[in-house]
């Protein structure tokens, strides 16, 4: 499913990549940017957390002429007045204006790195409203965003993921992705996949995490011992031929048991005359 998402989201799609401080999802985000650039799509990156140099170094060998970088990293709060995008400009009008800077017919893809930065300064309802308007208003074709799920309460992360059409959670360990996709028909698909990202940002999917592994590959208990526990063929034959002392074959049982001539004769005597209602025989009735 990861490869399907890399091929492109549906129109109006919103993908959230969730990561944590143990493993950063930024390289996966860059893989999505590179895949979009390779498909000849226009990509606008609104970056709060990485500088332009870092992004362009990461995206080496990609056709970056279709990449528009909007610098919200140098001065997002207006402290140094360097004229870049500030976080309080995160509203649908300003962001749509950024997206219109490219002159293509098709609405571009907008990448936000990261939403966690915005959520620290803009209230969550305002952020959700802006994202929803961007998604549905046709200003951008697709939205892809990075979210640090360990920086916000679970409820906030949940609300944002409700808005998204696809969510990829990068699990600690770094190579496992849990993917949830909401199709337009209302169906929800979930999957877990192993992946790795190569130097040139291509994603290589590996087989699913196999749960059968513990059952295979049992260690051979007779290996690596200082004494010999193995049997040779002759020893194995002799073992199987051995007659155990109290395990009898059918012939031996018949010879010992005399079952054909046995007959039991019973004559009840006085002690066996058992009265159910007076077992001790002492009632004076």
């Amino acid at each position: 499913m990861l490869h399907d998402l890399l091929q492109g989201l549906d129109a109006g799609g919103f993908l959230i990549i969730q990561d944590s401080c143990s493993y950063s999802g930024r390289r996966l985000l860059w893989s999505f940017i590179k895949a979009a650039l390779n498909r000849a799509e226009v990509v606008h990156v609104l970056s709060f957390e990485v500088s332009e140099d870092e992004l362009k170094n990461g995206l080496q060998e990609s056709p970056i002429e279709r990449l528009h970088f909007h610098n919200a990293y140098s001065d997002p709060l207006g402290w140094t007045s360097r004229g870049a995008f500030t976080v309080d400009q995160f509203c649908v009008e300003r962001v749509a204006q950024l997206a219109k800077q490219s002159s293509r017919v098709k609405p571009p893809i907008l990448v936000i790195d990261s939403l966690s930065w915005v959520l620290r300064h803009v209230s969550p309802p305002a952020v959700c409203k802006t994202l929803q308007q961007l998604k549905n208003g046709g200003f951008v074709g697709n939205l892809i965003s990075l979210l640090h799920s360990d920086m916000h309460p679970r409820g906030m992360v949940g609300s944002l993921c409700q808005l998204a059409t696809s969510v990829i959670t990068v699990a600690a360990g770094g190579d496992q992705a849990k993917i949830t996709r909401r199709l337009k028909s209302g169906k929800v698909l979930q999957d877990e996949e192993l992946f790795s990202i190569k130097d040139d940002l291509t994603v290589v999917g590996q087989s699913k995490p196999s749960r059968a592994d513990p059952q295979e590959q049992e260690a051979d208990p007779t290996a690596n011992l200082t004494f010999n526990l193995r049997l040779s063929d002759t020893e194995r034959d002799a073992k199987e031929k051995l007659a155990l002392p109290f395990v009898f074959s059918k012939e031996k049982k018949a010879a010992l048991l005399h079952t054909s001539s046995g007959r039991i004769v019973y004559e009840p005597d006085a002690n066996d005359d058992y009265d159910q209602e007076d077992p001790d025989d002492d009632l004076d009735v």
Partner: protein
Amino acid sequence: MFAELNSILNVSPEHFTTGEFVLLSDRQSDASFLMHHFLGFYLRAGCQVCFIGLAQSLSHYSAVSQRLGVSLSQAKERGQLVFLEGLNECSAILNPDGVRTGSEAMAFLRNPGAGLRALFQFAHSSVNHSWGAEERAGDAGGGPPVVLVDDVSVLLSLGVSADAVLDFSHYCRATVCSQLKGNVVILLRCDREEDDYDDVGSDEGLERLLRGLTHQCSLALHVQGLPTGYCRDIHGQVEVCDRRRRADGQQKKTTFQYKVHDRGASFFAPGTSSAVL
């Protein structure tokens, strides 16, 4: 400056990477010995250093650096070191009748909700010039600028929010690391146990600040005591996590044990302490 730590991090005063954001953190232990290492390291490397000392006085750092072979007073005299003595400035600001008015950098003490913009501007202006450029006319000036902060958990206890500290560290990173191609080293001390796993995103300032700084940093050194308890010969373990972009996307984490001596610290692989072997 600890030679063994230099070899672990693969750096030397003549050759180190710039644009680094180093996070030193500890949990129920004391990572300030690492701060003395970095201070001595960058002074030896000839960098323009701005040290924001909120936890201890200048005389404390001078005394420790003297033992490590670095003279802070000489560095201050030649303009290589700018030292903000937080403790002195606090008393000046909180005492309105005093003679000194206190540095504007500590203005957040009067108004913690306003954020750390003044502190950032102080740090920026301190490193935005090259020391000794007049004396060494032929040179391009001093080394890259470095900002060291010891330590940010003091800011939290003074009423500054975790978000404000994260904004401050973001600006340090954007200006000093990316624009001026320098380094930033921040120490964060967490005294509490990791007991708030239930609600990872809650506004518990210290844990949230630690996670936020971990996301921002490129190199994290985490100091904690030995999990098995107190040991006289091994003072704890350091986990070095290199978050820079690696070929396979994985972070490189290595653990070392350390012992702090009178004039330095020694680092060794777990289980190889000289007391044990």
